[in-house]
């Protein structure tokens, strides 16, 4: 083959590759782009979110045979890459997919990653629906094409304070430990504001760095100033570390409430019987009385997931799956896959699902009155919903027994 012919062929291929593929759907396929932490420090939850995306795609393709939008039936495809829990790497991956013409993005896990990546998709006029970033910064900087299944961090504590007010004896004092990152800090700020509004005194608000190997000194402060409730808006690793050191140092509080961590199998393994009575947040539970199209009820989703995936079911799978359902419901309402109509339909979305009623605020985060967290407590090895009362499967155990009295 002539050198000139090879060069011509190469140039043609390069031009083809560089040509933006603006179409979001090709050959009756809707492709969702994005990145997920499959490795790195956020991988544990990242994999949970990924399984949620995969579960929804599998159900729609295999059980429903696709979804009809504007008279055409589409299958769903995922084009998700490992961002290694690294915001810089995630940004590169998302920019590349934007350049390739991907229009619909699913979110990564962790506000530190979602923040820079949603800025890229917003600037490029693409859409992101995500269940991994709750930082207020995602929703309060004027973005119109970024939607979050969870309410923004500062609004995630309202239901918790409602429960505190109902407890007997009444909660009078709270201490807060938070990780100094874009999500945990905002969540702690929201907690402080909600508690102040309810007249509950905040004794301490202690910031931890992202990497922690010891919290002995923090617990010395907690023991010296024992609150009725210790709230930890920390991530899984840190939550386990805090709980373990609380047990070994006999730091007893009437209620230990950790927003992230207790939901995971790793937490249960690490703490054993001591995990009992620890309170956590969940945004979905298979026992919840919610249902809609697609999977059916919350229990049906759980059954389908368990029949097809090995990874232990947590609410992250459900919130990941509902991202895709939101896209599809919006596209069905719009009757097209064009970006602007789908964006407008997402903003106006209000549909029932196995996850609950899905509706976004004007800023794009989940409506806190519908999508706010429920509170769960491990009781005799099983997670029970303790608040709100409409969904509760058990009464809260409060005050909790001392660590060395737990069975």
């Amino acid at each position: 083959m002539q050198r000139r012919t090879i060069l011509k062929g190469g140039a043609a291929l390069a031009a083809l590759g560089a040509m933006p593929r603006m179409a979001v759907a090709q050959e009756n396929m809707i492709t969702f782009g994005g990145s997920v932490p499959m490795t790195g420090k956020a991988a544990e939850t990242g994999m949970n979110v990924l399984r949620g995306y995969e579960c929804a795609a599998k159900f729609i393709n295999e059980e429903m045979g696709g979804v009809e939008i504007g008279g055409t039936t589409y299958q769903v495809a995922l084009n998700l890459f490992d961002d290694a829990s690294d915001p810089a790497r995630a940004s590169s991956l998302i920019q590349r997919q934007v350049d390739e013409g991907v229009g619909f993005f699913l979110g990564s896990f962790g506000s530190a990653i979602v923040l820079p990546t949603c800025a890229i998709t917003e600037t490029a006029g693409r859409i992101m629906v995500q269940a991994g970033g709750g930082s207020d910064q995602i929703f309060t900087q004027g973005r119109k094409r970024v939607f979050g299944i969870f309410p923004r961090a500062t609004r995630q504590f309202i239901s918790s304070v409602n429960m505190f007010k109902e407890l007997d004896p009444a909660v009078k004092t709270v201490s807060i430990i938070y990780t100094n990152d874009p999500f945990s800090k905002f969540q702690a700020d929201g907690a402080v504001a909600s508690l102040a509004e309810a007249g509950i005194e905040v004794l301490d608000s202690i910031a931890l760095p992202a990497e922690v190997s010891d919290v002995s000194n923090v617990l010395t402060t907690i023991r010296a100033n024992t609150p009725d409730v210790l709230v930890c808006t920390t991530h899984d690793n840190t939550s386990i570390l805090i709980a373990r050191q609380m047990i070994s140092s006999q730091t007893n509080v009437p209620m230990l409430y950790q927003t992230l961590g207790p939901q995971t199998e790793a937490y249960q393994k690490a703490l054993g019987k001591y995990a009992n009575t620890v309170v956590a947040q969940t945004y979905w539970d298979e026992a919840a009385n919610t249902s809609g199209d697609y999977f059916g009820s919350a229990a049906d989703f759980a059954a389908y997931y368990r029949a097809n995936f090995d990874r232990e079911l947590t609410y992250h799978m459900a919130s990941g799956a509902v991202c895709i359902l939101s896209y599809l419901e919006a596209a069905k309402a719009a009757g097209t896959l064009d970006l602007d109509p789908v964006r407008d339909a997402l903003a106006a979305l209000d549909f029932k699902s196995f996850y609950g009623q899905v509706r976004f605020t004007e800023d794009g985060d989940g409506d806190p009155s519908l999508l706010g967290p429920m509170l769960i407590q491990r009781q005799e090895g099983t997670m029970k919903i303790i608040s709100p009362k409409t969904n509760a499967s058990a009464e809260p155990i409060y005050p909790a027994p001392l660590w060395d009295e737990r069975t």
Partner: protein
Amino acid sequence: MTLFLQTTLNGLMLGGIYALAAVGFSLIFGVIGIVNLTHGVFVIAGAYLALLFYTELGLDPLLSMLPVGALLFAVGWVYQRTIIDWAISRASVEASLVVTFGMAMILRNLLQLWFGPDVQTITPFYSFFSISLGPFRVDMVRLVALGSSMVLLLGLTLLLARTHFGRAMRAVAQQPLAAALSGLNVKRIHAMTFGVSAALAGASGAIIGIVQPFSAASEVAWTLNAFMVVVLGGVGSPAGALVGGLLLGLINSYTAQYFGPALTQAAMFLVLVLMLLLRPTGLLGNPYGESR
């Protein structure tokens, strides 16, 4: 005063773990002159192996330090004789920095592939015990960790001071050419040093596994901690690692208690920078560096 003493106690406990996790890094740096960025992977691999021994065989992590150390000794030996030696002989000692960085990334991902991304912990029966000493309280696992660190560091000190291998290692560290001319197999000593270093890292991993949660991604923090310990304490000696580790633990503890836990890393890096500016060889210096 009680608070200050409790804070000091907490810092010393934490420092013991830092010292043990860093001594292997210090040894390789002192003897071969390599900044081994794979060190944290050895630590976390040790934690995973200890977890396996615990879950599959019911072996306590303190006992599994021996088989874990032996396994990682073999890994370290092979690693030095192949990848590290190839990098040094074909390029330069500096090239090993890039090679160990790349290997750390590969090995971290392999660990995650084998063991999954989930956070792990080892929970022997004494995990949740603590000891009260008057008004002070000490976690049993941290006390055990400090004790194990002391035993292993003492063992290494004796190995370096009292055995033929220790003398050979010091000779190679001081004057590799003279050592070779005296009939010592320098490559073999380098491989043995790497093996001992990896074994110590693995043993420390078994301890770290019972003290705090870990995942493959944790390796980065342990390499960084080891680097800081070496800068603070000095290169190549167990005493330097101990001093550096305890100092780092105390800095961490005092900062957390008196300035806020969010500033611990900032304080640690501030001291690191000051140390590099004022005493770049660390508090105890490099016992081998003078004669090179």
